[in-house]
């Protein structure tokens, strides 16, 4: 969490003014999410090869950020909570990305062994 430039400490005295979401924003976000769900289903129909994965993940990230920014009030509340979400997500992506990168690098050795086993018909 390298967020700690001497930002003013969180509001600690007096009740923080609760951020109330108007119904229009709530319903708007819900509609957007339904639309994006439909979009991702339609997008999966088209055969874009490798791009299918990228498109599906992009739409999922979009939906997730709608939920986070609107339903979870991140767009209006204390910025540090957004920092916590983003940093956790980054570390998760680091774990997924690097482990997948390494396993794909040594995959040929695994394949060769499986081929040898299959060859021996065991």
């Amino acid at each position: 969490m390298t967020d700690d430039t001497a930002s003013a400490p969180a509001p600690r005295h007096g009740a923080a003014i609760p951020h109330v979401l108007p119904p229009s924003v709530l319903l708007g976000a819900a509609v957007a999410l339904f639309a994006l769900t439909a979009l991702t289903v339609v997008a999966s129909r088209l055969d874009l090869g490798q791009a299918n994965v990228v498109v599906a993940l992009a739409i999922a990230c979009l939906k997730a950020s709608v939920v986070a920014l609107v339903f979870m009030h991140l767009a209006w509340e204390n910025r540090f909570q957004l920092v916590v979400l983003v940093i956790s997500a980054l570390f998760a992506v680091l774990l997924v990305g690097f482990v997948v990168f390494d396993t794909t690098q040594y995959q040929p050795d695994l394949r060769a062994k499986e081929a040898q086993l299959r060859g021996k018909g065991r």
Partner: protein
Amino acid sequence: MTTIAGTAPALAAGESYLEHGHGLRSWLLTLDHKRIGIMYLAAITGALLLGGVFALVLRLNLWRPAGGLVSNDVYNKLFTLHGAVMVFLFVIPGIPAALGNFVLPLQLGAKDLAFPRVNLISWWLYMTGAALFVATLVSGGIDSGWTLYPPYSLEESRGLGILLALSALFVVGFSSILTGLNFIATIHTMRPRGMGWFDLPLFLWALYATGIIQIIATPVLGITAAMGFLERLFHLGIFMPEYGGDPVLFQHFFWFYSHPAVYIMILPAMGIVSEVVSVFSRKPIFGYRFIAMSSIAIAVIGFFVWGHHMFVSGQSRWASLVFSFLTFLVAVPSAIKTFNWLATLYKGAIDLKTPMIYVLAFFAIFGVGGLTGLFLGALATDVALHDTYFVVAHFHFVMVGAELTAFLAGLHYWWPKMTGRMYGETSGRVSAVLVFLGFHLTFVPQFLAGVAGMPRRYATYAPAFQANNRLSTVGAFVLALGLVVALAGLVVSLFRGQRAPANPWGAASLEWTTPSPPAHDNFAETPRGNKPYDFTGLRLVSEDAGWVRAAGEGRG
């Protein structure tokens, strides 16, 4: 508890936390962070003794090249549980849970941590995990090393001990997550008025950085234990090769947690060293911001280096290259901290009390521990030295050496505040010297055995390594003696120790403004934040009255 009228701070209110409620229930269901800290201290001391006994039996078995004291299987179970008990029940919870829980709210001038119930839950989770580890021991133990690498650990023929061990990992992991969560929430939102981020004592910066690691790394250990558990029962085919799994994948998951975990172990120790070195040199810490930022840097970069445990385990060459580069980067903040500590000693008035002697021992041992990491970070030498006694000596230098000496320094430093009694200075110093000598006699010969090519986790070894192993065995007993002397000195001081004043060391951070032992509610009203290392105006009134700050001077 007599508070010295007039000169004593007017902040204390009510009787001390030790007298506020009696009987087991008032301890086991307490929400008071100080009592939870004491309960953690008792539990981890038990874990240290249990793990220590295993270590002594291991060393005795290695007295002769053919072993023979215990059978190979028993030896393998002993070194596995020695590792598991020491890592998960002593070194990781050690400083944060025992000393951190006690000291953090006091240093913030707060009444308690942000979530007292969550703190009690994390203590109960820790005790459940400890019970599960003991159950593993009683039910026949596991013998795959604390790293639990499949396919060996998850084989059918190994029995069900592994399931107990994996559930213990899962439970102790969540205890660690909740402690980290509590610390970050408290430091972030409950600082008193007038205490900005750069007025925090450095022990709190260290606990904040440790909290980041606990929250982000430990869940991956939890999910790995869960996957291992289900793989063992239902053959999921994720880690076991005969069902299409990949054992190296387990190593990625395991080390993604376990390397940041070694920074969970060392960062709080560095925090204690920063406190003690400044107070006992009577000088403000040198390079406060660099030390604070080094803690955060270590915490963050610590997540990018886990692959240096897997250079020879089948990891791809490009991944090994990247991990080796990043491992060298993470060494730099530790060097910065060491130089800053040395600069703090410069022109100070160094008072060689027991905490300071332990910290000086820390400098020497952490120096060697850190520098030997360079051999293991470099690809060429790691291929030769991996999984040999060089690695065993390296991580014991950092864990038993640096972390344990800093823990003992912190324990002696805050002992008067925790118990209201002064520890015996002679027994403290004798134990420090014994620990320092015994430690080196145990682990320096292991460096030499490792360089000569003795692999680790060997119940029997080639006769060529006998000299080193015998030296190491003797050293282990000297180290054990030193720890027993330290423990005895502290326990005796509980009964016959001199009454401790509020501020025996002349420190400036807020915990020393409360009486020793502190009141149940810590502070009558929240004090203002102050400069943690500003000793102007503090005078030693007398041995039993301790240091007192003349009114009005030195307030931050």
